């Protein structure tokens, strides 16, 4: 797990955000907090927990991170939940529900004592959600933390999950648009990035050049990069279509870099489709990277002229935040959290089609000054609002608020 301390973050964010955390945490000293998700590596949730749990501990809380273990049937079902929450039409059969509930029940045997005794329990995404049904003697407050764009969920999937989620004391969504009709309070906490993680820290030009060299990527040709899992919702094939539409009008090369996650069984199939779409084009580099290739991804983003995130559906879109932190304009899909981050003509462009992406790539590559201006604006916005200190502050505020009575609009601690 991440071992960076608050004093290291102070060098990046300054003293006031660190003091805020310390002051808020005083009123929560000794509180036990448990986070549960379904994977230790790969994906935004694991990355967030990797810094959040140690920092909560440094602030005087007693925080831990538990990962539920599952088999193939379990992960196929939870992938269906994931896709269904994002609005895909997916089947939900009785055997799938049985596979899901039985795996969570096995995990509950191991986790129950810890969870039932905790002051605050944060259950991340649908995979471990059913734990609440199996922990009847809950002492603390339980939150369901949804990191997914659940704005238009598949009815059948949501109907099943809603019956579980409604049992929580509250839920947390990344954006107002992702919230649902639920019987409890729904809080809003946007995610964030860790500026000191391998994925976001400063890198030497030597290290960046070495990564480019390793993958035979030219450092003389403008680089367009999309970093995301090989997932249909990220539309990697659409990015290739956009790149092909440039048709030599501007000199560019494209990198599609994807990491795998242990809870995503579809990745390999989508990667094959992408390989087929890119076949024969030497300017397109497809990189299937291991889950821990954070510095490589960092180097690719830093080497990029423009970062692309042409998702068709998206949660918050942390790869967009990462790119903006590195001072890159982003051409992003007009969906989910990308709309919160990319502002047309200011931090990049929102697009709905491969044609739109091709148009904006051409526009920007012909205006190097605008690329730089947009990059400066993008980095400033992330620095002010979307680094992990703000994220952690909101969790502490939430815990204090819930403990003191959230119905009050002003609470002094």
């Amino acid at each position: 797990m991440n071992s960076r301390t608050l004093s290291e973050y102070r060098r990046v964010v300054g003293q006031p955000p660190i003091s805020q955390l310390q002051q808020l945490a005083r009123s929560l000293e000794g509180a036990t907090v448990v986070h549960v998700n379904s994977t230790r590596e790969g994906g935004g949730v694991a990355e967030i927990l990797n810094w959040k749990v140690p920092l909560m501990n440094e602030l005087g809380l007693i925080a831990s991170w538990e990962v539920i273990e599952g088999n193939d049937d379990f992960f196929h079902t939870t992938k269906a939940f994931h896709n269904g929450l994002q609005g895909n039409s997916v089947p939900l059969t009785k055997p799938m529900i049985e596979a899901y509930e039985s795996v969570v029940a096995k995990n509950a045997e191991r986790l129950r004592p810890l969870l039932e005794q905790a002051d605050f329990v944060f259950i991340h995404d649908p995979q471990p959600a059913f734990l609440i049904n199996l922990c009847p003697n809950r002492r603390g407050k339980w939150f369901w933390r949804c990191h997914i764009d659940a704005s238009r969920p598949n009815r059948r999937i949501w109907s099943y999950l809603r019956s579980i989620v409604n049992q929580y004391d509250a839920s947390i969504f990344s954006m107002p648009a992702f919230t649902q009709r639920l019987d409890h309070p729904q809080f809003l906490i946007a995610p964030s990035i860790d500026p000191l993680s391998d994925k976001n820290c400063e890198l030497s030009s030597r290290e960046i050049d070495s990564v480019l060299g390793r993958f035979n990527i030219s450092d003389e040709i403008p680089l367009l990069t999309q970093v995301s899992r090989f997932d249909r919702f990220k539309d990697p094939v659409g990015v290739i279509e956009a790149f092909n539409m440039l048709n030599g009008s501007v000199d560019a090369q494209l990198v599609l870099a994807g990491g795998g996650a242990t809870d995503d069984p579809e990745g390999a199939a989508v990667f094959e489709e992408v390989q087929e779409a890119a076949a024969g084009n030497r300017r397109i580099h497809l990189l299937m990277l291991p889950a821990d290739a954070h510095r490589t991804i960092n180097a690719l983003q830093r080497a990029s002229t423009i970062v692309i995130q042409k998702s068709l559906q998206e949660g918050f879109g942390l790869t967009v935040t990462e790119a903006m932190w590195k001072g890159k304009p982003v051409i992003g899909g007009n969906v989910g959290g990308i709309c919160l981050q990319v502002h047309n003509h200011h931090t990049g462009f929102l697009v709905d089609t491969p044609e739109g992406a091709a148009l904006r790539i051409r526009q920007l590559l012909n205006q190097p000054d605008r690329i730089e201006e947009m990059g400066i604006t993008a980095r400033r916005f992330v620095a002010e609002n979307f680094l992990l200190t703000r994220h952690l502050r909101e969790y502490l505020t939430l815990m204090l608020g819930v403990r003191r009575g959230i119905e009050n609009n002003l609470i002094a601690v």
Partner: protein
Amino acid sequence: MSERTENQFMPFEVKDCALITRMAGLGTAINLRELRERVADMPVDCLFHHFCETQVRPAFDDPEFSNDFAVWSARSLRDRVLAERLGVINPYTYCDLEVIRELVLEILDERISELAHFPSVQRGEEFLFMSATTVVFSTGILLSSPDDFFRQLPHISHSSIYYHFVEARRRTEHAGDDFSTWLTEYGSMFQDVVDTLSRIDFYYLSLPLLHDTIIREVGGIAVKVGHE
């Protein structure tokens, strides 16, 4: 008030605040009629959030309007006439949120009467009603004198500025800011600083910009009169 020496005054305790936002549970609005219905019924905390807490919420953009109703009218309804009418409302010029509610309802009624039909927004662009809880905490910083205030001003957080300079107007009887209230205890000695603070048109500035403005304006006076 007789003027006292600096060490006879109470120090200023710098506080800070953090916001946690939640859905207000009021459903959504997809057109002007629905917005009007919700505004008429919403709790004042919800109205306060959409008018006054926009400055302290994390945001990627620096929108052209300071309240959420105007932003939604411009971005989602694409009704710039309405957006400008709503956008010019400065909630801090009214002593009661109910007065602001009436004003918003009047503007909406007027716009409804002007339009031949009511455009509805697309799915995903509905107005979503929110409210927030503010947790206030001490920073551990005590300003022993106005000179100390001038020195420390650049180093306190943007959200402390929000709490003492903006949110104070909701909390205090005279609807003023905490810095001016404290400085007034020194009699006329810092009246020019108090006057300068009162002239800052804070509602239309983002918090970083407001912080910079206060530093610039107050710092300028402090240098002029030798308080640095």
